[in-house]
């Protein structure tokens, strides 16, 4: 009887280990998926930006607030290739997660104001903003899972509060300008996230150069 018990428990352990090993997705695959998600996120933001600017020549560029006034500008991020390649994997992931997390509230604001935007393409812009939200949410979930596998440094998120509130402008022009500004900030940050994740992906797949 005792022998049988030990045999049974050993078998159970073996099965559990097997299940654990089989069900865990390698980090390289997770990073690949995350990179594809961030690529899509940035592409979508570019399309919305183009739609927005198609009917308004960049006159607003002069009166638009400077990008240094983006609410995420306080986060210190690398600004060229050399600096980026020197950052550790966990820090890169932490930066990406922080940036993404910082946009969860402003995207809601954007989504809400897209409904009342005075623009010829208002409907399509509104739909695309909603899609943007969904993508952002799913990417965030994926990065949370990734961070769990990459150590404690990856888990830290810098808080970047959004102080714009729910109001993006009183009149049509200022509404459009603020909307455009927020969107440009988002475009930059999504490009950063995309670049960081792709560097991470390349580092994680040393054996497969075609991933880089």
């Amino acid at each position: 009887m005792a022998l049988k018990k030990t045999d049974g428990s050993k078998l159970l352990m073996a099965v559990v280990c097997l299940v654990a090993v089989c069900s865990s997705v390698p980090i390289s695959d997770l990073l690949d998926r995350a990179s594809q998600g961030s690529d899509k996120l940035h592409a979508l933001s570019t399309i919305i930006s183009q739609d927005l600017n198609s009917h308004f020549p960049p006159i607003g560029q002069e009166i638009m607030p400077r990008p240094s006034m983006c609410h995420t500008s306080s986060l210190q991020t690398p600004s060229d290739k050399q600096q980026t390649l020197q950052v550790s994997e966990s820090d890169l992931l932490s930066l990406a997660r922080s940036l993404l997390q910082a946009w969860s509230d402003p995207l809601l604001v954007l989504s809400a104001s897209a409904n009342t935007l005075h623009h010829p393409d208002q409907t399509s812009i509104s739909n695309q903003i909603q899609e943007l939200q969904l993508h952002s949410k799913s990417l965030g979930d994926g990065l949370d899972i990734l961070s769990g596998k990459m150590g404690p440094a990856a888990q830290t998120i810098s808080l970047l509060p959004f102080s714009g509130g729910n109001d993006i402008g009183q009149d049509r022009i200022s509404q459009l300008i603020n909307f455009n500004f927020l969107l440009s900030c988002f475009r930059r940050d999504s490009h950063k996230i995309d670049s960081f994740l792709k560097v991470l992906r390349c580092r994680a797949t040393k054996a497969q150069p075609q991933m880089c």
Partner: protein
Amino acid sequence: MRRDLRGALLLLLTAAVQSSSMSAPGKPVLLSCRSPEKETFTCWWEPGSDGGLPTTHHLYYERERLEGTYECPDYLSAGRNSCFFDKNHTSIWVDYYLTVTASNALGNATSDPFKMDVMEIVKPDAPGNVTLRVEEREASPCLHVRWMPPSNTDTKSGWVTIKYELRVKKDNSNNWKEYTSGTQTHFSLYSVSPGGVYTVQVRCLLDHGSWSEWSNTTFVKISNYLQNERPLSMLISILSAILFIMAGLILIAKRKSVKQWVLPPVPGPKIRGINSQLLQSGGSDDVGNVLIIKQSFPPIYFVWQDQMEDYLIVTENEDWLSSNSQKSLIPACFHFNSEIHSKESPCHQNDWEKDEEISQVDNNNKPFTNTGYVDFQRHVENVDVKHVDYSRVKEVKRDNILFLEKEKVQSSGYIHFQRQEGIPEDYSGVKEVESDHLVVLQKQNAADLSCKDEGNHYTECALHKPRKPHVCTELSDSGYVDTIPAPPLM
């Protein structure tokens, strides 16, 4: 003092000479900036009018997160009216504000500020070293294209992700066919056909940037010599086609004999006594009547409408009966014997028994029993019965032996015949009468009765003329009706 005066005079003179076309420079225009690898970038401007004076241009920039205004670090590397920013001076995800100032002796002119971010101006160089290789295969050739990424692009660190696209056109058409290659630096084209000149071009893209220019065109001619191997197979196919056609023609010419060979004629059923030629020649009424009656299988009953007595004596062939009791077709072989009524026929000395009962058999071919009995039913319709002395048949054995009931035997032993004129004669003659209750009939062609007087007890009767024969069809197991040649005449 004199020198100064001379210089001023000279200047005044030149100014006076060119006073009409001299002015401050026109406003330059910043055209575009481009970063080929996301690490450096170059900007170009268009100078305005120079105002007739030598004009110089200077590019100044300000940068986000960087205090101060700076001048372009490199005016030369990228050519005229350009400014090249090397790696040390390039930052990404920050805005640059550029201005170009043109200045000459008479004044300056500054362009509008040009805002740019490196992440938006990425456009790589075209891929290089595009090589084509033709691989000849049996079915169709295929084209292998190889190229190298642009030399200045870093594809190893993941800083940029490169994507390729190629386009192919055949000969001189303007129809380019485009293919996406992903991150591979090679591609195989299978939809190429020999005997054409193919032109291939490749371009690339970095992440979210713009497509590069198309690479230099590369040509390849796919030779036609593959088709020279074809003539042999073509010759063979042509020869075989000719052979087939000839065989077909021969077949058509001899189709009758071929048809006979392939589908030999099946011998039709031979009805004894019926001569097909006789039929064809439109034989006598007897023959026609033969046919009519012979075709009345399964047995039907017929009624002679005339005043003569009409009855049938139906005999069965036991042999066939037993083996085919299941068949719904003709269950047995029947001889139709209608009694010959003949007045004063020489063949009357016979223990011929006639039975006034006519057998009536359903047309539905009720199978007969195996015993050989004939089920006679009394049917007295339209029968003008003459009171003659009859014997009742007790049993029919085989096909020619009749057992009569004893009590009916007449002492006279006479059998009356009544010959019915015009009635087809299909009787069996009595061959022998044994004892007083056994009659043996002639098992022969009834049409061939010849009367012979041989004593009191029996007579052989035979008709002179060939009449209709017995039709005895034997049922085989397969259900077909075959004829059995009638036994030879007695």
